[in-house]
């Protein structure tokens, strides 16, 4: 079971209390009535689905109920850090330890898929 640090409860809680809530740091356009359909589609629907480090919103649904942001590695499922909603994106270079062990993925060990 994953333990996720809630920045509002100030402690680690079980993943069972949390829900993922999409990408973080998506700025809502201020000129929504004037923008083209393509721009609106890009804002509203299109997401990068990054393999590796992503910034996501999470909600401590069965806890304090607050939304917060998390930096998570989608390959290892490891939470690198969590921070309160509204705070800027943390510096990526400080998140990853210099000598982080390689994560054993299926692709790395079993498959030739690139």
């Amino acid at each position, binding site marked *: *079971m994953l333990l996720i640090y809630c920045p509002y409860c100030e402690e680690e809680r079980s993943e069972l*209390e949390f829900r993922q809530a999409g990408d973080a740091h998506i700025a809502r356009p201020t000129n929504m009535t004037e923008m083209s359909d393509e721009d609106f589609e890009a804002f509203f629907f299109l997401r990068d689905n990054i393999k590796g480090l992503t910034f996501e919103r999470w909600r401590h649904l*069965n806890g304090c109920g607050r939304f917060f942001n998390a930096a998570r590695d989608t390959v290892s499922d490891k939470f690198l850090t969590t921070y309160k909603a509204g705070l800027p994106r943390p510096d990526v270079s400080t998140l990853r330890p210099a000598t982080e062990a390689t994560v054993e993925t299926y692709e790395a060990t079993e498959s030739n898929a690139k």
Partner: protein
Amino acid sequence: MADLGADATGIVPATRTLPLAGFHGGSAAAVLSAAVPATRLSLRAGPDAVQALSGALGLSLPVQPKTSAFADGRHALWLGPDEWLVIDENEADLMAAVSASGALHSATDISHRNTAILVKGRSAAAAINGGCPQDLSLTAFPVGACSRTVLAKAEIVLLRTAEDAFRVECWRSFAPYVSGLLTEAAEDAGN
């Protein structure tokens, strides 16, 4: 005509049916019982209203995560940075109390939405851990600690009232599920 207990106005007061009336269960090491009726308030307010609301409620609303306050049969449980669950075991009118505070807040009477199960005994923590993933050791969850969390598939609010006693608040529609699960877990927790 039979005397139905009508008062001077001729109105017969309704009898309140508790979702877990008469419920008892568990094991010798974790005794389960239904809590007596209480009034409850879901209270939300910003930090500048905390002092006025504390004065109106007669206790100081906790502002630290996972803490609660207790005074004269009244509990105030920190649920979130701007959210509290207030429980009055004497069934005092909490809505009137917070209305008199004069501070900006949002209060909802949830007296009948919730019901509570009391878990008591040396294996009380083990019984709750049967469905709740939180660390309930005394260092991590001391007396007076409280938290909204999960008990298997149900959401509960957990309050430690003594070293060997917990209050489990759940929605009344979840009461059969929560009581049944706790009964099983209490039996597993030993005698």
